[in-house]
Each structure stands twice: as C-alpha cells, then as structure tokens.
C-alpha cells in the first residue's frame, strides 16, 4: 500500500465523485434515450432538457419514508442494499481511466473485479430472503441462479484477453492493445462478455430477478426510500462498470488518436457502451427463465470454452 499522497487522494475522490454522479445522471440519460428510441421526448420540463429530474429524483428518494416491514429480517434487510453499492464501487477500483489515473494498480485486477461482481449476487439473495415475501424470494432465487451461471463464462470469456496480453493487470492489458484492439481477435469473447455483463447487472433483456410484469418488483419488492435507491443506483453503477470494463478490455481503454486527451477517449467509448445497454433495453424481449439458463449453459459456455481453446492454440503456435 503506497502512502496517501494528495494527488492519490484526488484520484480516489475524483473517481468516487464521477462514478456516483454518472450513475445519477444515467437516470436522466436512460429516460431520454428510451424516449428517443420510442419517438417520445422523455423528461424535458424540469430545468434545461429536464436535467433537474436527477436532482428531484434524488431528493425524493432521500425524503421518502424508509419503511422496514415488521416481518423482515432487519439486519440482513438493511445490509443487502449496501452490499450492491459497495461491491460495484470496489469494482471501479481497478479501472485505469487514463495513464496514471487508477485507484489501485493491482496485478490481479481482473480477478479482483470478478470477485467483486460475485459479491453482487449476495445482495440479491440476501435482499430477497430478508424481505420474507414470496415474490421477493422468487426473484432472489432467479437472480442467484442467473448471476452465478453467467459469472462462470464471464470469467472464461475474459481469459482470451488475458492469454493475448499475458497479464491480469488492466493497465498492461490496455498497453498491450497499442497495435490492435482486442475486439478484433477476441470478437466472440467480446460478445459473450457483453451478454454476461448484461446478465450480471440484471439489466433489461435479462432482468429476470426484477421482472416487474411477473414478480411485483422481484427481489426489491419490499424496499422503499433510500434502500431502494441504493439498488437502483447500484444497477446504474453496474452498467457503468461493465461498460468501462468492455472498453478497457476490448476497445483499447484510453488509447486513441492524440487530438483528444486519453481520459476523453475513455469517457466517449464508455458512453457508447452505456448507450448500447439502453438500446438493448429498448429493443429486446425478456427471455423465459428456463430459456435464459439453457442459453447460458448449453450455448454460451461451450462457445466460451471453444473460444478460449482456439485463442490458446493460436498463441502457442505464434510462440
């Protein structure tokens, strides 16, 4: 652990500030983008382009009654939303936003991210279980199954990148992409990682745990006020995290032509992927639960293994 120099503290604070604000801003952005793709305007009354909707939503969440159901398991019920936010924020620790702008330059960065995203499954299970509500439990069970299954080949899909770059360190992975972005040699891996990432953040095509048309609101049926807000913000931060990772691993992170600073390149690419997430939400139907599991285990897992083996073979031949 290095000593906390002022510049390092600035980086930590900056990352935290940026991530939380981006997550809040995504509320507005998602509504605007969905409206754009559904020929509507979305929020456009409060303030310029409806930007104050973020402020108003936040204030509303803070002042709503934070009601804990009397039948809930209180300590676990309170803990569950915190786990989401903590695990996602810990995931941001390893992402290099620009040369030198990284909170923790871990040599096992990718493994750390996978560990942290696995922690996210706990929040769903604990939240659904502590709610003591059948719908919430159903959502939690589905969420647990989905997240654990998709975790498997999410990790395996990343291994192709690790093979090519020879490192788990995200900074080195970005540096290794100077010649060619990994989206080209690792296209299958990229697609699978994107799908697994969508499932991991239980985002709309795979929003099986929430499924508001089947289960009231899934695992957070009983939550209100800021606890619900934490699940909500956690989801948006998860989107940002997965987008950042896709950019870092497959689209060369902060690499780009020199007429823009590296940070701007990173933000632009991330924004593109966040938009892709929202486009997925706007255009995809929700798969049935058993279809989702079958798709994961019977199609994506073999594909991932095949991709990994072919990549490894090519790397060995070139040696």
């Amino acid at each position: 652990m290095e000593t906390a120099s002022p510049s390092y503290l600035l980086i930590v604070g900056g990352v935290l500030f940026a991530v939380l604000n981006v997550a809040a801003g995504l509320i507005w952005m998602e509504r605007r983008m969905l409206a754009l793709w559904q020929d509507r305007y979305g929020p456009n009354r409060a303030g310029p382009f409806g930007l104050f909707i973020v402020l108003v939503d936040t204030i509303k969440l803070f002042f709503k009654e934070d009601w804990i159901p009397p039948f809930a398991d209180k300590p676990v019920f309170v803990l569950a939303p915190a786990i989401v936010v903590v695990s996602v924020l810990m995931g941001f620790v390893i992402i290099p936003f620009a040369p030198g702008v990284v909170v923790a330059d871990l040599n096992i960065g990718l493994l750390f991210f996978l560990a942290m995203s696995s922690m996210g499954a706990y929040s769903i299970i604990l939240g659904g279980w502590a709610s003591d509500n059948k719908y919430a439990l159903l959502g939690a069970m589905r969420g647990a199954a989905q997240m654990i299954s998709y975790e498997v080949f999410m990790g395996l899909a990343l291994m192709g990148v690790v093979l090519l770059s020879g490192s788990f360190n995200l900074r080195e992975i970005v540096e290794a992409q100077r010649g060619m972005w990994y989206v080209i040699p690792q296209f299958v891996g990229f697609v699978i990682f994107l799908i697994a990432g969508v499932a991991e953040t239980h985002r709309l095509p795979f929003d099986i745990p929430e499924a508001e048309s089947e289960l009231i609101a899934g695992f957070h049926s009983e939550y209100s006020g800021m606890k619900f807000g934490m699940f909500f913000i956690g989801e948006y931060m998860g989107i940002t995290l997965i987008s950042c990772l896709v950019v870092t691993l497959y689209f060369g992170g902060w690499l780009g032509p020199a007429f823009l600073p590296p940070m701007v390149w990173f933000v632009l690419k991330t924004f593109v992927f966040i938009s892709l997430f929202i486009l997925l939400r706007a255009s995809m139907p929700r798969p049935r639960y058993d279809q989702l599991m079958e798709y994961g285990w019977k199609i994506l897992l073999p594909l991932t293994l095949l991709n990994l083996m072919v990549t490894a073979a090519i790397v060995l031949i070139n040696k």
Partner: protein
Amino acid sequence: MFSLLRSMWLTFLHAFHKRETIQYPEEKAPLSTRWRGRIVLTRDPDMGERCVGCYLCAAACPVDCISLQATQDETGRRYPEFFRINFSRCIFCGFCEEACPTYAIQLIPDFEMGEYNRQNLVYEKKDLLINGQGKYPGYNYYRVAGMAIGGKDKGEAENEREPIDIKSLIP
C-alpha cells in the same frame, strides 16, 4: 440471433424519426367537435332554459352522478330547481346527452377541469348553465312541442294543427 440484431437496428433507426409527443400545455391535441368533455346545460334561442326536468339523463347515467329536481314557473314551463353533476363520479360516456329529449344537456370538448378539492368537482346549475345553444343552434323545444305554456296555447306550435274538437261531428 439475426432477428435480435435486426430489431436492435430498427429500434436504433427510431432515433431519426419524428417525435410523437404533443407538448400539452403549449400545444393542444386537436379535438373533434363531438369530443365528450365537460357537461353543460344550454339555453334555447330566446334564452330560456332548455332543460325540462324529465330525469331521463339521471336515469340513463351509469354512475348516478346527475341529480336534479323539477319545478314549474307560473306559466307552466318546467325547469330544474337544482341540477347537480358530480364530476368526480362522471365517466363522460355521453349517455345523458343521448337521453336528453330537449338537447339541453350537452358534452363539449373541454377536459381541463382539474381541482385540488374534491368538493369543487360537484357542479351546480350556476356552473353548468351556459348562455348559448351549444351544438344545436335554433332549436327551441317549447316552440315545436304541443304543450301549453304561458303565451302559447295548444295548436300554436310550429308544424302543429289546431286540436280536433272532439265534441263536434264536423271533421
């Protein structure tokens, strides 16, 4: 898989479509003249009330939101003593308008009647009665009906023959 990508592409193309939203307070949706909005009571051309207190509208109302009490003035002309529509119950189905034999009750294309207080949605006759003929100009019930009121005896209405003298044999 291809269909998924195709649907994503088509959804993306919607970004370049025209937006459908009508920015309500600034621009209003065009409403037809027969649009069923606020209910009014109309008057005939010489400014008498058209309503004759026949209770047909109250009977036709599916939610029973109309209540009235008929009385007569000194000329024998019937009119409602009070006429009350509770708009918090009203479903704007227009059955009262269809049931009305004298074109008195009419629905007009105005829907902006929100209130903060529920009691304010109970409209009395002073709120309902307008100084106009609504959708049926020129119609005057007592000028075409064969009923005797002050200033008009039987047989004096438009298109009406003299009543037959039933005591005589001459046709």
